[in-house]
């Protein structure tokens, strides 16, 4: 029963992944400039000097003279095997560059996610439990400030304060150079926004549950205050919070792009920006594809988690 539902959900995520791949392909196709000329290592300005026979040969070699649909199928086929082509700019395999960058970004996202979940839920619970008192007021202020602070600006402020004025953390650079401490400021910078969103959702969801009769019953039974809040309250308030957490992956990656760039962390975000600055279309395609597939998968995991936690969804 549960297996069928999971299988169906797995099947559903397939078109999404295919769609992301199509989007990445079209992106490359839309870009101005001839990839054949780029592959020959020439600028667009030098177009008049190009030997037409040589150009035709390179086009043939890259498969650019084939119909669009054939190119598309070939690209998908190669991408499925983890081959995103060789970058015209740096002459390296794009897949190699992408998979080298992946661990940094994944580590950053995992650290950020755990920070955001723990601090956000704690803030939300405190806010709901002390509703209407000064603790609640302060927690809500923090949440609204957190939602409104631009991630890249916060990253700069953190860097200026805790790396320049008070040099506790390294200014920038990869983990391989400074160790895990290199992740501290980037993690804080990205985590603020999702933490605030999680706090707000935890608060409103908790308040809704805490107003129900079963909470009064539990309290009347003589259960301890925190036991009522955590076991009866939080357990029933958790579903909307998980939904918000699920949405955060896209949010986090968005934040990671600018923050990786600011702190010079060699992750997917930096790679994407590098691709954009260098007009390296294959690199952009590869990065977009990997990011998109990662999201489709994370959505899948959230949905599956949901089924495990809330039996009603299995029907």
């Amino acid at each position, binding site marked *: 029963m549960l297996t069928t539902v999971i299988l169906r959900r797995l099947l559903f995520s397939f078109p*999404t992944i295919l769609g992301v791949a199509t989007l990445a392909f079209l992106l490359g196709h839309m870009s101005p400039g001839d990839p054949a000329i780029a592959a020959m290592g020439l600028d667009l300005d030098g177009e008049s000097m190009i030997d037409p026979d040589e150009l035709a040969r390179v086009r043939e070699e890259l498969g650019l003279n084939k119909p669009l649909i054939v190119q598309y199928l070939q690209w998908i086929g190669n991408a499925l095997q983890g081959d995103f082509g060789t970058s015209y700019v740096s002459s390296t395999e794009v897949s190699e560059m992408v998979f080298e960058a992946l661990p940094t970004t994944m580590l950053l996202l995992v650290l950020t996610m755990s920070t955001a979940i723990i601090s956000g839920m704690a803030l939300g619970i405190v806010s709901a439990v002390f509703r209407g008192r000064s603790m609640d007021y302060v927690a809500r202020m923090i949440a609204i400030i957190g939602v*409104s602070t*631009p991630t890249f600006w916060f990253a*700069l*402020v953190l860097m200026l304060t805790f790396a320049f004025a008070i040099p506790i953390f390294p200014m920038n650079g990869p983990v391989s150079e400074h160790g895990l401490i290199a992740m501290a400021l980037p993690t804080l910078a990205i985590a603020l926004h999702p933490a605030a969103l999680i706090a707000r*959702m935890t608060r409103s969801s908790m308040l809704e549950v805490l107003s129900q009769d079963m909470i009064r019953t539990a309290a009347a039974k003589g259960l301890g205050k925190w036991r009522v809040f955590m076991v009866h309250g939080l357990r029933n308030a958790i579903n909307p919070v998980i939904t918000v957490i699920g949405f955060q992956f*896209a949010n986090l990656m*968005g934040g990671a792009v600018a923050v990786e760039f600011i702190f010079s962390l060699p992750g997917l975000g930096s790679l994407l920006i590098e691709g954009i600055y260098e007009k390296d279309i294959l690199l*952009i395609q590869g990065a977009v594809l990997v990011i*998109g597939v990662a999201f489709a998968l994370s959505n899948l995991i959230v949905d599956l988690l949901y089924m495990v936690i809330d039996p009603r969804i299995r029907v």
Partner: protein
Amino acid sequence: MTVTPSPSMIEGSASKNGWTLFKESFQHFLASRLNRFSFGLTVCLLLLIVIAPFIAIYPYDEVNPALGLSPPSWAHPMGTDQAGRDVFSRVIYGARTSLSIGLVTVLFGLLTGVTIGAVSGYLGGWVDEIIMRIVEIFMSIPGIVIALALVSVLGPSLPSIVLALSIRRITQFARVARGSVLSVKSEDYVTACHAIGMSNLRIIFVHILPNCIGPIIVLASVLLGNVILTESTLSFLGMGIQEPTPSWGTMIAKGNEYLTFAPWISVFPGLFLFLTMIAFNLLGDGLRDHLDPRGGSVV
């Protein structure tokens, strides 16, 4: 909302007309002090679009190398940047850039997205299935990544920035509109419209959408802040508004190079960006409590 006179009696049952209802609802909204604050701040910011030339003391591109990097003073309340341009004037003009891009993008996203979502939800079946699959594809790539990739392909011109920023908003509006349409689609009054032989388009735009307007307004106010944030991130990364047009993101990026000895260049635009985000987020919260108290739509 405009209600066109119709041969049927379906929409004419309320004793008060639309304008009175709107006025009462608006007064009720402004009864909260926080709502008054966020609404006032939003109006002030939007006014900047029109009155920027009257407030800014200097033209935004007036270069004065002799005054480069001077700290805040009476003549230059927020100091000057590396080229001696007045930071205050540039921040004010930057508000104009950011807010008008935000407004145009959200309006474009709203019109397109709501139409797509409403048609999708109303028709159902395979049309709905296909449209929602496409929406899901766009939802699984972060907004800034789509925007960066599109701008890099189309070039950083104003239309391509607006297009790049709208794509994700279109899908967000489509989702919300579809959900609202689904929830009112099976109401009796819609069945009644069918019974008297109204066309589908008329039912969707005249009878269904006005009843779904709450969540859409809430989403629009939240997305306005969101778009402005994405635009400034884009400009910060050098893929958005280009110099000399002032934009908060570009100013923060430029000021970043002088951060340690001339922090005012990037601190003030950052502060304005933060204020704008506060205004729109609070306004969105207030509107949600007011118009859509049960809806937990999270963006």
